[in-house]
């Protein structure tokens, strides 16, 4: 009976996407999610009585529109709209708002840094020019240089031609920009570092790098290329639509079902064993859990080649992010934008200020003045909080999982206080209005979401770990154990709620 049965591990965005693709391909699919709610890092949850957030992650704008179309998410309630405007607040001054609306951004820049208005237009035009080819690369299986069959060569030739058609200057620029640091490249473009920091943010989020770290520019371009329309209602809304689509496709979803092991026989998977002791047979297990958990924890020891075990152990997945949720009485107002209803903000106005965050993390400390990535999801979605009240959700990057003194209740409280103090610089009324605070350290996130190392991208986005994710032999979603597939953010093309790792892994199954 396990003949065509496929098991998907993990009910996050990748797990749901993979399950739907597999089910639509004619398989009987069971999805196991350890938690009681689906969504993983994109799950919306109540964190204080009457107050809900829309996901640990703030940004779902990288979710592939091609997949939304393929999986019929619109008919399951998904509405896409422009990304949220994002404010870089200033303690004294109006700061800067970056908007998906070109007009709005131009107006903001005209007031903030006039010569950047035209430069910003050119910057977007450059990205638009390279987007089609870059998107194709990031939404296809990783090219394999060792393969010389006609299909692979044809694809290589096609991609090569597409790059050539961009012209020699753009080609040179493409080859030049990847290894650079974001600060250098953005300083070439723009005069305003505040603008640069807003753009650089997503490239640096969750990672062990600062704006002066080489090769971060490749991540900036990756994000710019992937980021488009965002689900209305945030990551949680995406999860709701995916769940509906999965159920419609006949996927059996079992929440609260923690998997304790992957069962193998004669070099192939034969199912999973749940924490409750039951065994579930299957000929295919597609795991969207992080690669270390999947291969080092769930597989019986001795199953894998020791060299591969060594590589997986060396896979860098030390968490760099903490999360704080605040239940706030009344509305929140940024001092730099009185009267405006701001949904997203990111502090930090200079590359050096951001770099200093990374400096602290390098020595396994937390910056005494953390830079914050703030979301106020209750703006525009009042149902998330009691009447008139607000939800403030804060991602704090450069908070190391391997903190020198370890994580304790005291350290958690200290982090919460640092975040409140940093928020108060821009939201002076806020601390007095906070009713409840939930602080999730990287250690808490590791435990709650079963993420080895607590890394919110399931592993660093170093170029080595992107081009061979998580290791060279596992970079194409298949494993040495027949029937076992990797489809989480720890697989190609990496993290950020794109849906592609899950989708590509599902394609690798058939």
């Amino acid at each position: 009976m396990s003949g065509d049965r496929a098991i998907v591990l993990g009910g996050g965005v990748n797990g749901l996407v993979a399950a739907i693709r597999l089910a639509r391909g004619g398989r009987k699919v069971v999805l196991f999610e350890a938690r009681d709610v689906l969504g993983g890092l994109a799950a919306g949850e109540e964190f204080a009585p009457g107050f809900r957030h829309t996901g640990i992650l703030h940004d779902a704008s990288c979710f592939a529109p091609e997949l939304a179309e393929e999986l019929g998410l619109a008919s399951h309630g998904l509405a896409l709209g422009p990304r949220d405007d994002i404010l870089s607040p200033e303690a004294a001054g109006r700061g800067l708002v970056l908007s998906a609306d070109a007009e709005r951004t131009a107006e903001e820049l005209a007031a903030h840094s006039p010569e950047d208005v035209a430069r910003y237009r050119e910057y977007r035009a450059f990205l638009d020019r390279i987007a089609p080819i870059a998107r194709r690369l990031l939404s296809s299986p990783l090219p394999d240089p060792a393969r010389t069959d006609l299909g692979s060569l044809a694809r290589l030739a096609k991609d090569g031609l597409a790059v050539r058609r961009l012209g020699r200057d753009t080609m040179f620029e493409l080859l030049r920009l990847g290894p650079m640091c974001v600060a250098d490249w953005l300083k070439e473009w723009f005069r305003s570092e505040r603008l640069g920091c807003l753009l650089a943010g997503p490239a640096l989020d969750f990672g062990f790098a600062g704006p002066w770290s080489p090769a971060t520019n490749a991540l900036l371009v990756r994000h710019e290329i992937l980021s488009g329309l965002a689900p209305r209602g945030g990551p949680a809304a995406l999860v709701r639509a995916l769940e509906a689509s999965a159920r419609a496709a006949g996927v059996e979803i079992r929440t609260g079902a923690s998997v304790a092991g992957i069962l193998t026989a004669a070099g192939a998977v034969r199912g999973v064993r749940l924490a409750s002791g039951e065994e579930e047979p299957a000929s295919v297990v597609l795991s969207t859990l992080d690669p270390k958990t999947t291969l080092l924890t769930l597989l019986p020891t001795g199953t894998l080649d020791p060299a591969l075990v060594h590589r997986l152990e060396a896979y860098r997945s030390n968490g760099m992010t903490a999360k704080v949720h605040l239940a706030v009485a009344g509305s929140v107002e940024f001092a730099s934008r009185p009267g405006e209803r701001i949904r997203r903000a990111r502090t930090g106005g200079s590359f050096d200020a951001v770099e200093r965050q990374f400096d602290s993390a390098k020595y396994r400390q937390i910056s005494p003045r953390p830079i914050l990535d703030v979301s106020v999801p209750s703006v525009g979605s009042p149902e998330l909080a009691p009447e008139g009240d607000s939800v403030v959700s804060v991602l704090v990057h450069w908070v190391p999982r391997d903190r020198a003194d370890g994580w304790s209740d005291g350290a958690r409280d200290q982090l919460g206080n640092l975040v409140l103090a940093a928020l108060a610089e821009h939201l002076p009324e806020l601390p007095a209005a906070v009713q409840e605070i939930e602080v999730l350290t990287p250690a808490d996130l590791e435990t709650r979401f079963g993420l080895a190392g607590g890394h919110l991208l399931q592993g660093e986005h170093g170029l080595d770990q992107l081009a061979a994710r998580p290791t060279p032999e596992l970079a194409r979603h298949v494993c040495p154990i027949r029937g076992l597939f990797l489809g989480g953010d720890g697989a190609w093309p990496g993290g950020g709620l794109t849906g592609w790792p899950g989708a590509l892994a599902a394609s690798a199954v058939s």
Partner: protein
Amino acid sequence: MSASQVWDAVVVGGGHNGLVCAAYLAKAGRKVLVLERRHVLGGAAVSEELHPGFTFSVCSYVVSLFRPHIIRELDLARHGLELIPLEASFLPLPDGDSLCRWSDPHETRREIARFSPRDAETYPEFGMAMSRIGFFAKDIIDQPAPDPTSLDPRELARLLRLGGRFRELDPDLQHLNLQLLTMSAADFLDLWFESPVLKAPMSVSGIIGTFLGVRSAGTAYVLLHHYMGEIDGAFRSWGFSKGGTGGVSRAVASAARAFGATIRTEAAVERVLLEGGRATGVVLENGDEIRAKVVVSGMEPRRTFLSLVGEENLDPEFVTKLKRYKLRGSSGKVNLAVDRLPEFTCRPGGGAHLRGDIAIAPSVDYLERAYDQAKYGDFSERPYLNVVIPSIVDPSVAPPGQHVVSCFVQYAPYWIKEGPERWPERREAFGDAVVDTLAEYCPGLKESILYRQVLSPWDLEQEFGLTEGNIFHGELSPEQLMFQRPVSGWSRYKTPVNGLWMCASGTHPGGGVMGAPGELAAKRLLAERAV
């Protein structure tokens, strides 16, 4: 020589690359003139008697990457080139212990085993893997950079050949190559070794001369340089040039002269002579005009174009690219004359451990903190030092019983927060930081100093024409290497100015006392029948 004489080539700058280029051109029968602004040849590969009886390798202090085929083709041994291999790599530690890596692998293994038996086993394996990749990389540094944007069938064939060679490597080495190109030196070494005592001094070769830290992505591949150096065909050997690094330049100059080249010192070039957009010679600072079929610049590229050619004579797009070419020097040099052999607390007395290079690099965090200070515009209070005492193995450079101590120092950013022109006010404080750092391991050092020369990046620029004090004529970061050095599309020594060529470290394959850019430029000039 008559004023109306037209040279085949005039080379601006008598650094080692300019001299190598001139020697190859002269060897091919071309009439070549080299013009050097200073009174002494060699550029940054120079020896000077700064204090009576003491000869210093003022800037570059060890030789390793110098291409062996150049030594053969120019017969440099006959012209006095003599390389003395370094015998050890010595790391004194703050806790009174030390690590010494010797040229004898068994002794090295014993020494490393004191810190980690596992690392002692891994160390030779690591060296072998790196050498195999280094061998692959040599193919790239000994030939002009491949151009991936060209449609020329020869270029495509070359790219395919390189791709083919890459595919011939076994998958493990391919992966290693990927890691080397993308990882930080610290992360990369973490994959191999466990002992912090070993990792810190090893990681540091990934950052020499760059404005990066050992935790910066992309620094791992510079580790290869350590395994690509060759003396007499033996990989991984670093050496002193007898009489100082200037010995290399003197030998090349002697070879060039023997082939018929003319070399003039104290002949500063003011600008390139342009006629109808073509370079037809140079004008010296004293007003003399010298005419030549081609002008070959051994100077750093940005300086070549912006000060010798002039922005008004260049395509604005090209100027933009030159201006964003990253130089930002990060290192300085402190040269000491001392009246006795420096003595390290951890290994008292003289001995073989001093007959090589000495690293002050006690931990990865130490190195990273040194870098952090530089990022925000300060020199490191406690810098990384690479110290050599060449007078131990080459008595010709100091009076008997006395020594020259050369300290390469990182980080010393050109762009200090006060502004680079304020370096003269900070210079001595910088020198003090260096001496204080070394004296922590060598307590008697301060009392033994007879003379001290402190070179900040600003001084390197003023004295040696190293723009922004960058010792490699431009960062060796991936986006400024190969077909992108110095700017995309102009990596073949030719420039947008007809008749003007480049031949120094700002071109492929880059900086270090390699001689490769000079050689490759000369060969290209000859192949294209430009002279």
